[in-house]
């Protein structure tokens, strides 16, 4: 795998190099977390901070006729009051779709949208000031569903988007009509998916510190993307980015909620500047739900052509996503729903139509498994239904459509490695599928499905021409190495993984490393933690930085031992002349290396090879990745036919993530990922009445508790990804999408009914059971009448 790994035999007294990669490594910041010492944004010491508070809209769609803040401003203890007047720069993650303001200007587009904000000396005063702000609204029709927003004559949320359609996608690859004609069976079904939310346990919070003397601003926030926060705040405040510093403290989960600059982050900065001081803006759980940015309500119409062998000949799909009030990542999400159809199975021809629609609901965004999850449920479900017609087993139909990597899809995506066949083999065997499927007692069922995901987007959101990732390693006189990265550890363990990669290259114990992640004054710019880009992209940069450092240390050792660099081998704590006992300790090599240069900083970068960056068609930027990870899952359920309650008995998941650099963390990520998919399948959904959210808390927005969470068995299958660092690729998102369809298939076996969407909440299961019984009664009555 690498030269350290191959360096097996050592003489007595000669240290063996350490293998930091491949080890079950507890998190390098784990002690802070279990002792309560870890400081999240809300925990940062800020005794002088003013309290920020937001006035939000009580209407889901309205014109703002007037805002009067004079009484609020006059209240003693109030230090700043701001409105939409204070920021006229629209923002949004995509340069081509910026239509959101931190505080509404002219119109409000969803219930809870921020209209004004105050900074005051304490919370009581801040709340009192909000009550003194007078806003006059003229209400407009409220569009909650995509269909309402698209209806003829609907008021436009954004003037430049007719029909309230943010983006319509029309892509056809291969000959779909010929594929449909060649099929032995063509079937079309429709599916409906409720909107879900990230529900990370840490509520949103920003601490913004403005120094009036220097004119500089320091922002600490709950972000997965500190660099985008830096960029957006500079733009919205019309400040030189050099005067802004963004620091990422400990982050209490993300799952995509914090993958773009969020309005409250800009508002906190605006308030701090207006108050000429420090402002802490802490959002409530309800406000955090309203920030949203999660998986949209989705309607899918899917048609598949299939041969008797199970081979798919063509796919024709139409997707409508209720995108919410502003653009955000919307264009990317609607494109992923189509692009990710291509790289799980061999797809000879695919027609995809997508509509991303503006509605009067909180803006949606990229939730774990971005864009692919609902479509995966529809696809796997329809595939199962068609396989049944041919009497094919659920495994057989999937195996009939596997490709062998390397593979290029018809939409020009290049898959370098895929071990999906091995994943299927393992879950089939581990779950006892062959001996149990179809033989379970009534009310019990098994289902299988597959899913996959990218290891970072080959084309970054902001095209700057720079490398995709940069890592610095700093070595000083004490021999300790500090890894500097802008990649945000949000709990997934990225800081641990990056240190493991560097430690592996240098043959050192992890204890020699410190990681500083996400402080713009110290760490190189990084696009952030999203689309599962960190392990592969930032990992490759860490690998390159460590290799550079090793070269310099080897050169120093060679000089000291008076031999050529090719004669030196690195053993981690010692550098030795190959084939001899002559060596020099790591500490002495460091001394020699620093003699001339002083403290050393090396730099490693990663750029996705040009030939992996995708095709030239419109929307081709979404889908390409240096690597794709694969997963197969089996779900076992039992269903109570009296209550409609589903109990998940067990999940089996096989994951192809290349080489697992930290198998402990991979297991943790896969377990969390499939569990999140289970939550979406079972019970999670948002709900709005006249635009007002009904489930803006963690009781009504039901995430599974520990009581209803099943045992989850994870298998990491053998795999090696040549494009990844030490053979690694993505492990945190690819498995999620397999669970909803596998669970739905298991329920279908248990109760004999397949529900056309998610979640499979007890009320929906009961309704489906009632419908089935009615149908059965009708059938038997008709039979009796004959």
């Amino acid at each position: 795998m690498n030269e350290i790994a191959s360096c097996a035999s050592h003489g007595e007294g000669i240290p063996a190099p350490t293998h930091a990669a491949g080890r079950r490594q507890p998190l390098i910041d784990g002690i802070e977390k279990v002792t309560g010492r870890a400081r999240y944004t809300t925990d940062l010491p800020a005794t002088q901070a003013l309290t920020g508070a937001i006035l939000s809209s009580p209407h889901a769609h309205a014109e703002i006729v007037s805002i009067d803040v004079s009484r609020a401003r006059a209240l003693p203890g109030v230090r700043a009051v701001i409105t939409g007047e204070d920021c006229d720069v629209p923002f949004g993650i995509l340069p081509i779709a910026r239509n959101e303001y931190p505080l509404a200007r002219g119109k409000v587009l969803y219930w809870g949208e921020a209209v004004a904000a105050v900074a005051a000396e304490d919370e009581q005063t801040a709340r009192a000031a909000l009550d003194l702000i007078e806003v006059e609204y003229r209400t407009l029709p409220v569009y909650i569903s995509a269909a309402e927003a698209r209806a003829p004559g609907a008021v436009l949320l954004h003037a430049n988007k007719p029909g309230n359609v943010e983006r319509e996608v029309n892509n056809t690859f291969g000959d779909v009509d010929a594929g449909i004609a060649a099929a032995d069976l063509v079937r079309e079904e429709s599916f409906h998916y409720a909107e879900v939310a990230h529900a990370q346990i840490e509520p949103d919070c920003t601490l913004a510190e403005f120094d009036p003397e220097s004119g500089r601003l320091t922002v600490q926030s709950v972000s997965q993307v500190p660099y985008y926060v830096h960029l957006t705040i500079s733009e919205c405040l019309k400040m030189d980015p050099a005067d802004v510093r963004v620091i990422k403290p400990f982050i209490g989960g993300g799952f995509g909620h914090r993958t773009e600059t969020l309005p409250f982050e800009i508002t906190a900065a605006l308030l701090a500047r207006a108050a000429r001081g420090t402002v802490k803006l802490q959002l409530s759980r309800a406000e955090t739900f309203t920030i949203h940015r999660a998986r949209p309500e989705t309607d899918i119409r899917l048609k598949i052509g299939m041969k008797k062998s199970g081979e798919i000949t063509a796919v024709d799909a139409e997707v409508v996503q209720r995108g919410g009030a502003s653009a955000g990542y919307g264009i990317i999400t609607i494109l992923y729903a189509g692009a990710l159809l291509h790289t799980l199975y061999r797809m000879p021809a695919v027609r995809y139509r997508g509509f991303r629609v503006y509605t009067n609901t909180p803006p949606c965004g990229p939730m774990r498994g971005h864009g692919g999850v609902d479509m995966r449920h529809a696809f796997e479900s329809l595939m199962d239904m068609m396989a049944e017609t041919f009497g094919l087993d659920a495994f057989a139909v999937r195996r009939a459509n596997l490709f062998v990597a390397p593979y290029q899809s018809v939409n020009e995506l290049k898959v370098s490695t895929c071990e999906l066949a091995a994943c299927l083999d393992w879950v089939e065997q581990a779950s006892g599928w062959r001996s149990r499927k179809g033989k379970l007692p009534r009310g019990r069922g098994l289902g299988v499905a597959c899913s996959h995901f990218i290891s970072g987007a080959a084309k970054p959101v902001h095209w700057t021409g720079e490398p995709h990732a940069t890592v610095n390693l700093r070595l000083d006189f004490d021999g300790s190495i500090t890894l500097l990265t802008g990649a945000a550890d949000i709990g997934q363990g990225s800081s641990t993984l990056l240190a493991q990669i560097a430690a592996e290259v240098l043959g050192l114990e992890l204890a020699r490393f410190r990681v500083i992640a996400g402080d713009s004054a110290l760490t190189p710019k990084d696009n952030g933690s999203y689309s599962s880009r960190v392990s592969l992209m930032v990992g490759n940069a860490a690998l390159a930085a460590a290799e550079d450092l090793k070269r310099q240390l080897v050169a120093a050792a060679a000089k000291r031992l008076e031999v050529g660099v090719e004669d030196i081998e690195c053993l981690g704590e010692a550098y030795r002349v190959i084939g001899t006992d002559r060596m020099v300790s790591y500490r002495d090599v460091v001394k020699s290396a620093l003699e001339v240069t002083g403290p050393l900083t090396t730099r490693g970068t990663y750029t996705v090879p040009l030939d992996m960056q995708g095709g030239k068609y419109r929307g081709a930027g979404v889908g390409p990745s240096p690597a794709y990870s694969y997963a197969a899952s089996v779900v076992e359920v039992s269903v109570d036919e009296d209550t409609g309650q589903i109990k998940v008995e067990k999940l089996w998941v096989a994951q192809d993530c290349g080489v697992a650099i930290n198998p402990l963390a991979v297991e943790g990520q896969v377990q969390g990922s499939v569990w999140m998919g289970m939550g979406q399948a079972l019970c999670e959904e948002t709900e709005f009445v006249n635009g007002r959210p009904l489930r803006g808390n963690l009781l009504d927005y039901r995430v599974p508790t520990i009581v209803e969470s099943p045992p989850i068995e994870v298998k990491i299958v053998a795999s090696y990804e040549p494009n990844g660092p030490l053979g690694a690729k993505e492990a945190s998102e690819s498995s999620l999408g397999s669970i909803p369809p596998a669970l739905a298939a298991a329920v279908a076996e248990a109760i004999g009914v397949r529900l056309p969407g998610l979640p499979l909440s007890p009320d929906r299961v009961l309704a489906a059971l009632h419908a089935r019984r009615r149908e059965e009664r009708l059938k038997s009555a008709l039979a009796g009448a004959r």
Partner: protein
Amino acid sequence: MKRLVSLWLNGRHREDAVSDNLLLLDYVRETAGLTGTKCGCDGGECGACTVLIDGEPRLACLTLAAACEGKRVETIEGQAAGGKLSPLQQSFHENLGTQCGYCTPGMIMASEALLRRNPRPSEADIREALSGNLCRCTGYVKIIESVKAACES
């Protein structure tokens, strides 16, 4: 109204003037400066603020500081006695019972209450004891493993 409240916080005696409506959560985090206890919701939804009051797990966001007069309050900061991690802390760290870490203090405190009451809990006991603590990262698998491993150590 304010009143003088006298209590033991992590074994140390304190006396503070607190408002009648001050939540224990704010008392612990702001008055005492112990930010290990987390707030994850708008009240009683998530369990992140679980502390021990006279050994019983309680939500600090639903408890008034004034109601803790004369009581022993324990938070995550009091768990590493003498600079040594508690068995649960050690186990949550080693077994990845913590990912983002935000629910972790509450999880560990609720688990600590369980283990004091029942040093050899079954898996069902663990699930019941932690049923009010939400975690969004782990799927709970490694949390259960962490509690089990702590019992064995």
